[in-house]
């Protein structure tokens, strides 16, 4: 009885505000767009008994129109490059934190995580201010005899913003894993005559691979659906899924197509999400 009292409020909340919305989303993806408020014809008619009146038009559009296929491919590529860059930057950072004196570790870790707490938009604002045509970075480039270059609203700006936003996510699992690792294995390898680089390559790196995979996925999953960063920093032609979905919903008011895009994105991200949870359970 007491258990039920504890369990019921969160479970009811989650069923209503997580499960039900996703089911509705899946259903609306099969609806037909139409005039009115809301701008679609429900796929199931209730008057006089339930009757199916849905259509596969929106889901078909996703496959038939290369614009959408391209958006998905571009999103996956952007997420992959972002996650790879984050991993490349985060690994030496995590090693540096794990190798620091014990009293320094927590402050250093906080220093990495603090930007995450300073707000997402202010940090994007900083990049806009730095990269704009007459901006700070272009000023420095001019002094060096290069430029001015078109930096803002380019792929470079997009990746700078993405990596800056997601880097803390990649450092955290790596630093945790490297801090917890058993250094006696590395000492043993060194005692047996392995050079530092060999120790790293044959002991440290392989042992940290699960954490590296977690870090990669922790960036890849949210990056694949990202909307705000491409919108504020990316080139106009960088039509990633998040942006396309936003446009279909807010500009074209095609709710079924937006729902179909969301459903497709969800199905596409399901394998990495399941892999991530599996890695998390093992750790």
């Amino acid at each position, binding site marked *: 009885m007491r258990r039920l009292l504890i369990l019921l409020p969160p479970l009811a909340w*989650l069923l209503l505000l997580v499960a039900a919305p996703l089911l509705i989303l899946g259903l609306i993806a099969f609806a037909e767009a139409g005039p009115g408020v809301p701008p679609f014809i429900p796929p199931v008619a209730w008057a006089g008994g339930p009757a199916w009146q849905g259509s596969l038009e929106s889901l078909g559009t996703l496959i038939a129109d290369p614009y959408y296929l391209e958006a998905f491919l571009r999103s996956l590529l952007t997420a992959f490059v972002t996650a790879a860059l984050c991993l490349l930057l985060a690994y*030496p950072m995590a090693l540096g934190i794990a190798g620091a004196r014990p009293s320094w570790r927590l402050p250093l870790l*906080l220093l990495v995580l603090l930007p995450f707490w300073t707000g997402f938009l202010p940090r994007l604002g900083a990049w806009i201010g730095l990269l704009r045509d007459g901006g700070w970075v272009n000023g420095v480039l001019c002094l060096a005899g290069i430029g001015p270059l078109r930096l803002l609203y380019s792929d470079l700006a997009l990746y700078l913003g993405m990596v800056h936003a997601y*880097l*803390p996510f990649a450092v955290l699992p790596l630093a945790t894993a490297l801090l917890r690792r058993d250094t006696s294995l590395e000492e043993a390898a060194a005692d047996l005559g392995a050079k530092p680089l060999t120790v790293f390559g044959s002991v440290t790196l392989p042992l940290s691979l699960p954490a590296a995979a977690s870090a990669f996925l922790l960036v890849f999953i*949210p990056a694949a659906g990202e909307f705000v960063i491409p919108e504020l920093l990316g080139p106009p032609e960088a039509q990633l899924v998040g942006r396309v979905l936003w446009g279909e919903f807010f500009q074209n008011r095609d709710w079924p197509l937006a729902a179909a895009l969301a459903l497709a994105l969800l199905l596409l991200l399901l394998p990495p999400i399941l892999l991530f949870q599996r890695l998390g359970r093992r750790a």
Partner: protein
Amino acid sequence: MRRIGLAFGLLFLWAPISLMVFYAFSADRIPFQWGGWSLRWFAALAANERMREAALLSLRIAAGAATLSMLLGGLAGWALARFGPFRGRVLLGALAGAPLVLPEVVTGLSLLLLFVLAQGAVEAWLGWAPGRGAVTILLAHATIGLAYVTVVVQARLATVDPSLEEAAADLGAGPFTTFRTVTLPLIAPSLAAGWLLAFTLSLDDVVVASFVSGPAGTTLPMLVFSALKVGLTPEVNALAAIVLAVAALAVGGAGLILGRRANGAG
């Protein structure tokens, strides 16, 4: 080598933010352009009625959502950590974890569709339905925050020996007394951390809020987002400096408390 990597990463993370804070005190109309020391943009920000209203709305939504998240997430985390295997455990875990991994656009759109259908149903029933705005944003943010609090509380309870609670029960404490005197003090720091996390996430969210809000509810991030689409203004720059200072104080304070506790325990 590893020190250079760490230094480079920290420089990359902090250089744009530090420059932004520095230039918030510049008098020049163009952001990131030095025009002498000045507080004029902070004054302009304080005088901006729309910004003030949006900030107040955002703070109220964030506080309400964080509190709901803390209560519901605390219960969910407790059930997942302490109830052992039970029917619905997998479902609860999956649903509580979903907002952590769902893309923001998916969360936003799916919640909006629910709210629209609910509005339609209420309207068919009563002939009138409340509009979308602060309340729908609050419900959405509480759901996202719930997921984070659940993880934090569950992780904390996993490290707490259940025999402490059993001992209290064996000594004759009722369930409520056991909770109040043993469990609650043990999980209070993680509840507080979860509240702060949910509060910050709510204050930072543009995407979900844009989907589920109506014409009446413009939060601060929504306002800042539409400003940034045109470019960086010195007012937004000043706002960013304030946000950063508050975040630095909060995290620095939390770090000091945690660090002192860790040192004291060790």
